[in-house]
């Protein structure tokens, strides 16, 4: 094809014509959406909510996970020593263990301290009096290094249990393990819900676009009659989907902001009870861009599905 020079008798080059089509389809379809603000807004809100729900849940889960990472090395291993161990032997063992890799600190709780602490905590002074012998062994609290995760701690416990003088190694972090597992399950669940919601959006938006395809049936027929191909006829609808999806993404940003700021104080209160840092349900720029892009992608995809199904059925009669 010749490019338009001077007298401009022919169509422009393929690429510039193609770019021109795109620009025109994009602006035209945006104009059409603005021309029907209410239905545009309703569709965008539906998409926005569908995107915002899983986002908020994922943010909450992520936030709790972040809290878990900041938990400052709780005593995650308790070594109950043999009753026959003396305090000196216990101290020697402490030195040995502390030198092992993956250990940040070891603390010795002498049996007498343990007993008095127990009595203080429970108020069972009579029990103390009735005992002739302290039944508690010396105890070592082993703090693994911060980078040692759950599996590593289990291995460490097995290893330490074999040490001379150690009667039992107790991993007292099962709650952490359970919490981590439930968070992971929660995350997978939310992701599945997110996929379902996205599918729902694709079908709902696809149907909305089907109606607009029907409404512009005459236009499509005329376009096909005078030499416009499927691509040309399809383009405005793809852009409609893209714009609606992107608008939906922006709405979802608003919803995340709104919900985040309204429920965050309540959750922060909860976290404060556990002496934890405040929860962050904020909307980062990155997340906002991700949501808009996800909305646009979903919108485009549903337009593509809808148009592929319906547009080819419209042929000039």
């Amino acid at each position: 094809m010749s490019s338009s020079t001077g007298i401009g008798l022919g169509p422009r080059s393929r690429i510039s014509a193609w770019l021109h089509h795109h620009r025109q389809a994009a602006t035209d379809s945006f104009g059409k959406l603005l021309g029907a603000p209410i239905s545009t807004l309703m569709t965008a809100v539906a998409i926005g909510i569908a995107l915002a729900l899983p986002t908020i849940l994922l943010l909450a889960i992520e936030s709790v996970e972040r809290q878990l990472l900041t938990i400052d090395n709780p005593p995650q291993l308790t070594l109950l020593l043999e009753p026959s161990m003396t305090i000196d032997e216990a101290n020697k063992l402490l030195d040995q263990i502390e030198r092992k890799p993956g250990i940040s600190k070891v603390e010795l709780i002498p049996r007498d301290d343990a007993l008095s602490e127990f009595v203080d905590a429970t108020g069972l002074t009579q029990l103390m009096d009735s005992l002739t012998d302290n039944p508690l062994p010396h105890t070592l609290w082993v703090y693994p290094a911060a980078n040692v995760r759950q599996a590593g701690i289990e291995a460490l416990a097995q290893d330490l249990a074999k040490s001379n003088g150690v009667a039992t190694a107790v991993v007292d972090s099962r709650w952490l393990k359970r919490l981590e597992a439930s968070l992971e399950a929660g995350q997978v669940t939310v992701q599945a819900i997110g996929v379902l919601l996205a599918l729902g959006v694709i079908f709902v938006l696809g149907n909305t676009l089907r109606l607009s395809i029907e409404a512009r049936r005459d236009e499509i027929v005329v376009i096909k009659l005078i030499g416009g191909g499927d691509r040309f006829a399809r383009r405005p609808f793809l852009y409609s989907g893209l714009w609606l999806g992107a608008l939906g993404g922006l709405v979802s940003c608003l919803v995340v902001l709104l919900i985040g700021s309204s429920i965050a104080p309540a959750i922060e209160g909860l976290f404060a009870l556990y002496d934890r840092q405040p929860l962050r349900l904020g909307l980062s720029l990155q997340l906002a861009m991700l949501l808009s892009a996800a909305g646009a992608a979903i919108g485009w995809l549903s337009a593509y599905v809808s148009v592929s199904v319906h547009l080819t059925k419209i042929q000039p009669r």
Partner: protein
Amino acid sequence: MDVQFNRVTKRFGDRDALKDLSFSMVSGEMAFLTGHSGAGKSTLLRLLLCLDRPSSGELVVGGRSVNAISNRKIAHYRRDFGVVFQDHQLLFDRSVFNNVALPLEIAGFSQRDIERRVRAALDKVGLLDREKALPESLSGGEQQRVGIARAVVARPKILIADEPTGNLDPQLSAEIMGLFTAFNSVGVTVIVASHDLALISRMSQRILTLKNGQLITRGESQQADAQ
């Protein structure tokens, strides 16, 4: 562009809409296609535009077999045609200007070229002052002229009109036929389907008469039929 129908048959169910039809037109020729309704005029035009495919026989346009054009290439093939419809087929949600501009947009002309060509086409049909109007506000004759402007704006090689004067009074009809003759005089192949025998017999052009899907008069071709 020249047009050849070689023993073309189009069958719908057990009825032959066109039966073993053969004729040809040379490039730059003009012909009227006439016959009672149901004689096959529309079917012939539809085959020419590749809206339907022949059941048998071959259709050659511009030296190229239309039978061989794949479905994906049909849209491109149609860009060589300007088509005027009886019911105008204008888009009522856009201005006269934008209606006429549509074929140029499809073909990928620049905005500058579009403006110049649309104005030239509207000028030819005498509607230059109505470019901003919506088709609704125009009379039937004016709407038809917008349709004609759209058909010729991309300078097609073949102009096809299906009953373009169907709903117009005799004077307007004559004016519109005059427009087609004018386009033909600059080298465009023109085929006009019309049942207005009184009008077309005055135009002293080739007349193809269809009856029951067969040509009963094929008029005088300038060259093609002599071959």
